[in-house]
């Protein structure tokens, strides 16, 4: 399958993947559990339109962040795959 791809750096690819995953999961945690639950009361003193910010994160904002995170992940992984010579079809 990938014997021909001599430049594949599987180790480098995996450690870069882990790093990216950790950062994205941190944001995932911050925008939902952080903004929507733990720091909600604090954020509620600000508002977005007519909604308290913490409440908005819990019912809307977190979901938009989730979507953005997954698409960013796809884009970043494509770049990693190119960089480390990982075979993609």
């Amino acid at each position, binding site marked *: *399958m990938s014997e021909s791809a001599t430049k594949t750096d599987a180790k480098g690819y*995996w450690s870069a993947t882990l790093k990216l995953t950790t950062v994205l999961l941190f944001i995932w945690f911050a925008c939902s559990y952080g903004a929507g639950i*733990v720091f909600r009361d604090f954020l509620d003193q600000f508002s977005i*339109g007519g909604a308290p910010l913490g409440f*908005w994160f819990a*019912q809307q904002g977190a*979901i938009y962040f989730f979507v953005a995170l997954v698409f960013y992940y796809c884009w970043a*992984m494509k770049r990693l795959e190119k960089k480390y010579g990982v075979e993609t079809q």
Partner: protein
Amino acid sequence: MDQTTWSYVFVGVTFALYIGIAIWSRAGSTDDFYVAGHDVNPVLNGMATAADWMSAASFLSMAGLIAFLGYGGSVYLMGWTGGYVLLALLLAPFLREFGKFTVPDFVGDRYYSSFARVVAVVCALFVSFTYIAGQMKGVGVAFSGFLGIEYEWGIVIGMVIVFFYAVLGGMKGITYTQVAQYCVLIFAYTVPAIFISLIITDNPIPQLGFIGEVKGTDVSMLDKLNQVISDLGFLEYTSTSKSMFDVFCITAALMFGTAGLPHVIIRFFTVRNPGAARISAGYALVFIALLYTTAPAVGAFARLNFVETVNEATYISDENYEAAATTVLAQGGKPVPQWFKNWEKTGLVGFEDKNSDGLMQIRGPAAPDGLANEVDANNDIFVLANPEIAQLPGWVIGLVVAGGLAAALSTAAGLLMVISSAVSHDLCRRTLFKNMSDTTELRVARISAAGAVLAAGLLGLYASQLGFVAQVVAFAFGLAAASLFPIIFLGIFWKRMNKEGAIAAMLTGLVSTFGYIYYFKFGGGSAEQWLFGVSPEGIGFVFMWLALGVGIGVALMTPAPPQDIQDLVEDIRVPGNRHDHGIADSGMHPIDGS
């Protein structure tokens, strides 16, 4: 044409469409049957995943649930979407690279153990059966409530339709029907939402109306709602009675449960490669977010509208609604809205004049005037009555009925796939009769799909007598979070994880979560006894950590897994790198979809 006729037309047309797709996409091999030939377009797979995911409960009940729970409803919104981030980042691409058919396939091969495989089968079956009972019940309710067909016959019709495309087409048939079902359900959900948003806030986009102002005023919609309901003795909409820690745990249990649900995971086996699995999870999340960001808006609008139009309205028991309403209006009163009268017959809304003043009082538990609440409303009413509240034509109601059925049937079909593949593939082919040919397996798969449809139907009939369907859903998520998620995750990210650890982790998660939920839901436990104040809905998250801890502890005390297994783990981490590895793949070779 009247509403019922329109409902028949929409349901008839959509069902014909589903059957047409089933005939067009018949499965020719086990590869087709289990994973749609590993060749589904990522966007279409995203749609299918969204339909698979959004059940009758998401479509009919969630907006109403949020309307009643206010901020407390956020657990469902974040919980049922955030799991897709975990899926995309931690599971889907790696499981796709692993290249087999089912979740127990992965567990059994990665942990080189038939016992682990069978435990995974038990988890998958348990989770899927609890979930499917609710779907079949939803189908029965939709038929009996809108089409005037008896509950039992409604379930039979639903079974016949699912039988057609699940048994004939397997995953391939299910995938393309789900794509059609997604289109039906999202259209049916958003059209009434747009109109109700226009009525309340004058903004056609519900997500913007949600943070906007009440039409013709400069008061924000949420402030108004907070004030209106707290005046009646309810908790403010933007607050909750649940503790912060409990909200945290419930959200997390739903998220990790989502990521561990077999019928969601198997959808990512159907695409071409790990890259496609990643992007497909992204599309799935977009398609899900479309409904999940609309639902809180619908919930808030509906609650506001419900209180404003029904509270202190004059009840009309007269046969001739029009005439009586005109009289009430002429006397300067507020007549009960027409939609309330229409839905009263179904029992989803009800009025009892406790103080005999002829007016309908809506009151919360802390009502300042001390009056009792006289109006009952079921969660489902808000989505169902939306078209009428928004004064939309009769055909829109038909559309909502078809949408609700699409949501229930698509989820039921995805679950049936898990059940039938667990029996035919994991139990028969991989555990009991290892030399089974592909043709025989396909036949067994069809037979077990048929059996699963039958079992699900019976469960649906039985569920009508048992009121606990909504509660058992806590089982499905809790068990998926505590038993399946930890071992799949460790199986990918920790090479050292071995058979002993995996079995210990699965059993710990299964037994502790099952015991806890059973005790508090059916065994008479009271809220004061909750562990760390965590409700049964959120306990899966706590026991997930327990399972992770036990699994890691046991693994460290027992020998490392064989080299073949460690090589396999290295392979699935890097796309396009999958090789055949001795004992890991001795039962079945990985399938290269590309």
